[in-house]
């Protein structure tokens, strides 16, 4: 479909670098699915839906900075939702979120919590103020925190919070290096990861987002650890030109 016009109704400052933009249109979606956010005249970028009617954005470059200039009544174009989200399985699940990776995991926590799952979240960030959606995860279950600088929770990486406990399913989103570390620690067939690749069409056509033969935009963005174990995941990715670059 063409981009739907979505008018921003509220902007919430989650952290100094992360804001949630609520809009006037809701999208039926599975947790982990994403939309393409068109900042007219600038760029169109992929964003997970952090609510039915919101995206939670970290300011990292041109498009996200442009979006940070937007406020109530400004409008963006939205295509989607696209891709396959997290498949909810088992009773006792573990969520591992690094930084803005909490965005796709937060609706998953809420949904699983409402369905009576036992939800444990490991939430990591650089520093205390950069922890996102802590309350949303807490309302769904137990939360353990890690910060790189030790300002909250464990001093270190969120991966260090992983205990030997057996979970029915493990869900993870964050920087690829961190996700790779998680994959090395857990049972691949019981884990799901939401991947980041350069998205152009979002329609499964252009091939820009491929992890080997798999399209992040259409076959993913969520893949099982098993599938990723047999792939270039954690080793290299493609830039906008399609060149291989080290992760």
């Amino acid at each position, binding site marked *: 479909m*063409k981009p739907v016009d979505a008018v921003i109704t509220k902007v919430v400052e989650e952290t100094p670098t992360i804001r949630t933009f609520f809009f006037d249109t809701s999208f039926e979606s599975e947790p982990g699915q994403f939309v393409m956010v*068109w900042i007219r005249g600038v760029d169109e970028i992929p964003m997970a839906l952090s609510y039915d009617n919101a995206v939670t954005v970290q300011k990292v470059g041109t498009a996200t900075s442009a979006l940070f200039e937007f406020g109530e009544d400004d409008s963006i174009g939205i*295509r989607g939702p696209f891709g396959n989200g997290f498949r909810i399985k088992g009773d006792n699940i573990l969520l591992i979120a690094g930084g803005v990776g909490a965005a796709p995991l937060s609706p998953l926590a809420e949904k699983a919590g409402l369905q009576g799952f036992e939800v444990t979240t490991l939430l990591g960030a650089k520093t205390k103020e950069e922890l996102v959606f802590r309350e949303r995860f807490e309302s769904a279950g137990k939360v353990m925190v890690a910060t790189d600088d030790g300002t909250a929770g464990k001093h270190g990486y969120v991966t260090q919070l992983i205990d030997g406990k057996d979970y029915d399913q493990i869900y993870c989103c964050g920087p690829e290096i961190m996700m790779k570390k998680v994959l090395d620690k857990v049972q691949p067939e019981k884990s799901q990861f939401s991947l980041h690749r350069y998205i*152009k069409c979002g329609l499964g*056509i*252009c091939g820009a987002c491929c992890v080997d033969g798999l*399209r992040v935009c259409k076959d993913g963005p969520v893949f099982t650890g098993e599938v990723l174990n047999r792939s270039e995941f954690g080793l290299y990715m493609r830039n906008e030109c*399609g060149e291989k670059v080290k992760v």
Partner: protein
Amino acid sequence: MLSLALTGLELKNPLMLAAGIMGTTGGSLKRIADNGAGAVITKSLGIEPASGHNNPTMVEVDCGYLNAMGLPNPSYKNFQQEIDIAAGAGTPVIASIFGGCALDFSEIAGVLDADAFELNVSCPHAWGYGAQIGTDPDLVEDITKAVKAATDAPVWVKLTPNVTDIISIGLAAQRGGADAVVAINTVRAMAIDINSGYPILGNRFGGLSGRAIKPVAIKCVYDLYDALKIPVIGVGGISDWKDAIEFIMAGARAVEVGSAVGNNISIFKDISSGMEAFLMEKEWTLDEIYGMAHKI
């Protein structure tokens, strides 16, 4: 029952992955080959790595898709390994290549090892490349000649429909020694977001693909079949076996499938089994339906 020889290549069926579709990595090309394509064509490769146009680069419209990728590609210099991975499927791998002049094209074709080359002189939205060249018969002839001199592999020339007379361009390719022509690349087009007045594509305009353009492509193939001695390969809007049959009846020796792969990664298997069932029921062979619309 669907196998054929095409410009010297042995194909298990006449269904190929079109250029620019899942064609940037060896892994994705191999996946399509493993899923039933008779051959796969790479993303168009140029001299230097390029990131293409700004997003939005592609958008769905009423009856198809509009794209202006802007020929993003990792450069042919980084691509032999991807071709080799794709070739692992045991299916021919065709390198689509583009450039600003005959020299660019022959440089690439002289170095890359591929089963055939498809010359993209037809992309409607990359300034100085593609259709900027493909609307000029002399340039098309020169480039084809240069590539033929640089490689022993078969050379196909992919044509743009955005011309007054596609036959004159097809004849130029034939004069240049092309082993086949491919028709069509996307149709020049545009969409505007009425909520803001913005052209939707980052590049403002682009090329239309998908079902909307099938009747346009059929007409181009029909005309080229009449005018040329070399085979015509059809592409544009194929989304099921009926479309493939229609192209072959129009005069396509083989076809390529692009946009429709997005929603059906197994489309090559689906089309080939549909074609087989149809031919069986009608008691026709692939050769019999080839160009049938001309013989009637």
